[in-house]
């Protein structure tokens, strides 16, 4: 078969710059053939090499005594005591989901699940962070419907509960939606599997689905900007097969309970290429693959296609010698393909053979280590002036609250999570709809559980990347605390526009700086993550969206609290300082269409201090319900607690001279609302700890919000606004 000749032009078509191609020529000492060029291009794509972000990612705090594995493996691993480990990561599937929402989102879930179970963990919770365009944009409804059913379709079939996430709308995502999926799994701390090859001569084994011509060049597509011709890139979308993935999960975990595996890695973006190269590179070894033995579902596939295929539901394993038959029996039991396709070598080269002939040979270390690393120029986002409350129009409290609760960003996302099986496995203790979700560890042994949530406020990040980055971490951390858990570690999904524009690069740098600062201050290391750049169409970029996915630990899930008011006659206590910060608030954007002003400052010392106080109060069983105060401010949080518990509240008016709209809707950080039967004790403890706390009202049987200096508001009316928006939006043709 005649292969096209490799030229600088072909290299350019593969997304390689002239400089990068020059470097390839130096490494190879000759002109590469097309297969070799393809391998370089995917390994050096933004998606696989992190060439624009690597320099900055290194500044993130990634260690702590409880961190077993930080970034660099398939997923991060933390020690959660008693020999248990939590394994988790977040990943984006933005571009494919825009092109084919159902399959794009579904395969995104499949990919992140494999990242987690490849480390020996059984997945116990899925999360999803979604960002869509303006609800009025002609594509939005179709994208929401497809993405949500795709996420559900995959996770539900796998039998992993999807328990938390977020979903927001903004015109900046009109041409570039964000679909970030996170999986959390559980393993034994001494049974973690890594993607580090060892033992020259050891067999390399392919398991899972057969290889087809799926998604060839998917990894480079994920690193390319959209233009009006992107329709032509369409066939690169893959179809997911969750049933096969379920079998793969069970088969891998079964084999992992033996001692047969040396190393294992899923075939994700860049498929067989990245999995074989990365395993070899981590072990400082070489790999020889016989492509004739790769199971395939189409005929006539070239080496290039086999190496670059992104067919889903596949894994690459290095086995201990002599354990092939044992492993084969496990995979055959689960009716999956199993093939020994090569062996680990000492040469340090990736050698591909076809028909006994070498068709590609690349030195592994330079392929990985000499991947380009860019220090892209960046400019700092100009600082905005703070907005005085007096410069923000006031609206009657009742009208403002009703409209906010029915605004797309704050409206209930029940329509979404009811399409997700959030109960399978029988361990969902705090369901979606509040702050973090809480899942108990499986096996019915202990009482331990994990709190999980993703968060980001792109509005803030756009206004002030550093503050926004810190706020995303703080809000995620706070959501974990609000259930009573101890925040342990996080994963991050950095979604940005084109990094070759200095102002976008400035957003990336700023957000990472803020994230790093907050993670340090809160002892909340980043143990895994993903970067998605070029989320830009015809020069229009998304708001910077660094999504933080957090995991917290509960020693006893029976201690967990939800946001729902439990009983009438309980005191409602506000923790944290309220200045009435309306700059960049949802009040401003949802009600007045304005996104001006500086976002609220993030005082990390106060975050930590207030959060530790709240967690201790929950642990001491003083707290019957707890909710962090974020988007929409105090009255929105309070209304959500009332709606969840079907109880009303009688409220005090604004305090400390703060104007009403600032008091009720301002977005000062580091705040929580708690309900308690022991207000005296709570307030005394807060005073002792130096934590600002004041009683702002009492829960009531009557289903209204009264007092507070505003017209009484019935919960029924609020509920209609809150629950009604998304279903009626989606029901429109």
């Amino acid at each position, binding site marked *: 078969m005649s292969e096209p000749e490799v030229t600088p032009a072909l290299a350019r078509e593969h997304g390689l710059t002239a400089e990068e191609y020059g470097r390839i020529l130096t490494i190879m000492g000759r002109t590469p053939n097309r297969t070799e060029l393809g391998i370089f291009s995917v390994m050096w794509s933004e998606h696989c090499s992190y060439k624009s972000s690597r320099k900055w990612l290194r500044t993130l705090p990634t260690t702590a005594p409880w961190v077993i594995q930080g970034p660099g493996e398939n997923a991060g691993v933390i020690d959660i005591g008693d020999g248990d480990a939590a394994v988790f990561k977040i990943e984006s599937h933005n571009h494919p989901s825009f092109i084919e929402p159902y399959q794009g989102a579904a395969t995104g879930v499949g990919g992140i699940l494999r990242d987690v179970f490849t480390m020996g963990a059984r997945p116990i919770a899925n999360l999803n962070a979604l960002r869509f365009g303006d609800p009025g944009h002609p594509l939005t409804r179709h994208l929401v419907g497809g993405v949500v059913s795709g996420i559900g379709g995959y996770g539900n079939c796998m039998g992993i509960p999807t328990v938390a996430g977020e979903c927001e709308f903004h015109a900046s995502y009109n041409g570039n939606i964000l679909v970030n999926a996170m999986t959390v799994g559980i393993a034994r701390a001494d049974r973690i599997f890594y993607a580090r090859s060892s033992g020259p001569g050891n067999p390399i084994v392919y398991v899972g689905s057969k290889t087809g011509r799926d998604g060839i060049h998917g990894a480079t597509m994920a690193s390319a900007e959209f233009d009006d011709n992107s329709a032509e890139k*369409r*066939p690169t979308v*893959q*179809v997911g097969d969750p049933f096969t993935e379920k079998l793969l999960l069970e088969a891998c975990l079964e084999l992992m309970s033996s001692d047969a595996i040396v190393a294992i890695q899923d075939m994700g973006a860049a498929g067989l290429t990245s999995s074989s190269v990365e395993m070899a590179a981590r072990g400082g070894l070489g790999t020889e693959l016989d492509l004739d033995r790769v199971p395939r579902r189409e005929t006539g596939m070239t080496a290039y296609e086999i190496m670059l295929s992104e*067919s889903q539901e596949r894994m690459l394993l290095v086995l201990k010698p002599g354990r092939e038959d044992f492993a084969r029996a496990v995979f055959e039991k689960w009716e999956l393909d199993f093939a020994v396709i090569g062996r680990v070598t000492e040469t340090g080269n990736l050698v591909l053979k076809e028909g006994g002939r070498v068709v590609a040979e690349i030195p592994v270390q330079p392929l990985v280590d000499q991947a380009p690393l860019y220090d892209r120029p960046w400019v700092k986002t100009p600082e905005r002036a703070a907005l005085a409350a007096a410069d923000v129009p006031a609206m009657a409290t009742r009208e403002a609250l009703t409209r906010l609760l029915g605004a797309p960003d704050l409206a209930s996302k029940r329509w979404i999570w009811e399409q997700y099986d959030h109960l399978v496995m029988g361990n969902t203790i705090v369901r979606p709809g509040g702050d973090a979700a809480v899942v108990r560890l499986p096996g019915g042994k202990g009482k331990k559980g994990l709190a999980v949530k993703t968060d980001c406020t792109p509005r803030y990040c756009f206004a002030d990347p550093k503050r926004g980055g810190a706020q995303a971490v703080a809000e995620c951390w706070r959501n974990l605390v609000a259930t009573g858990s101890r925040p342990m570690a996080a994963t991050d999904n950095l979604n940005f526009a084109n990094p070759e524009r200095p102002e976008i690069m400035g957003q990336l740098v700023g957000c990472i700086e803020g994230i790093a600062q907050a993670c340090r201050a809160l002892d909340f290391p980043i143990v895994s993550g993903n970067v998605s750049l070029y989320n830009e169409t015809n020069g229009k970029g998304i708001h910077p969206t660094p999504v933080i996915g957090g995991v917290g630990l509960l020693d006893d899930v029976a201690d967990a609290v939800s946001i729902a008011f439990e009983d009438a006659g309980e005191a409602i206590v506000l923790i944290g300082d309220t200045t009435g910060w309306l700059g960049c608030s949802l009040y401003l954007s949802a009600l007045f269409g304005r996104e001006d002003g500086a976002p609220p400052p993030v005082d990390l010392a106060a975050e930590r201090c207030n959060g530790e106080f709240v967690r201790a109060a929950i642990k001491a069983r003083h707290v019957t319900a707890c909710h962090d105060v974020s988007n929409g401010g105090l009255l929105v949080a309070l209304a959500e607690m009332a709606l969840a518990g079907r109880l009303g509240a009688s409220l005090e008016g604004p305090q400390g001279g703060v104007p009403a709209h600032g008091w009720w809707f301002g977005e000062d950080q580091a705040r929580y609302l708690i309900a308690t039967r022991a207000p005296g004790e709570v307030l005394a403890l807060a005073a002792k700890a130096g934590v600002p706390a004041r009683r702002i009202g009492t829960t009531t049987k009557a289903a209204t919000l009264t007092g507070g200096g505003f017209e009484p508001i019935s919960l029924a009316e609020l509920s209609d606004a809150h629950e009604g928006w998304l279903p009626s939006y989606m029901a429109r043709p």
Partner: protein
Amino acid sequence: MKARIHITLKSGVLDPQGKAIENALSGLGFGGIGNVRQGKYIELEIAEADAARARQKLDDMCRKLLANTVIENYAIEVAP
């Protein structure tokens, strides 16, 4: 006029359903079955007397809603 629309996965696109059906059939003892592909079949009535115009409209409907041309092909038949 009556119309029939067949929507099938493009060749080369993975068809997990077809594959599963093939396995199940062989499990039931039906031998010699291969290349099973599952698609969708839609019947409808369209108030349009002119076959060419009906076909045109149906084509539009397929591209806009019924098929996802990223991964699917469609075929239209009209029967007066």
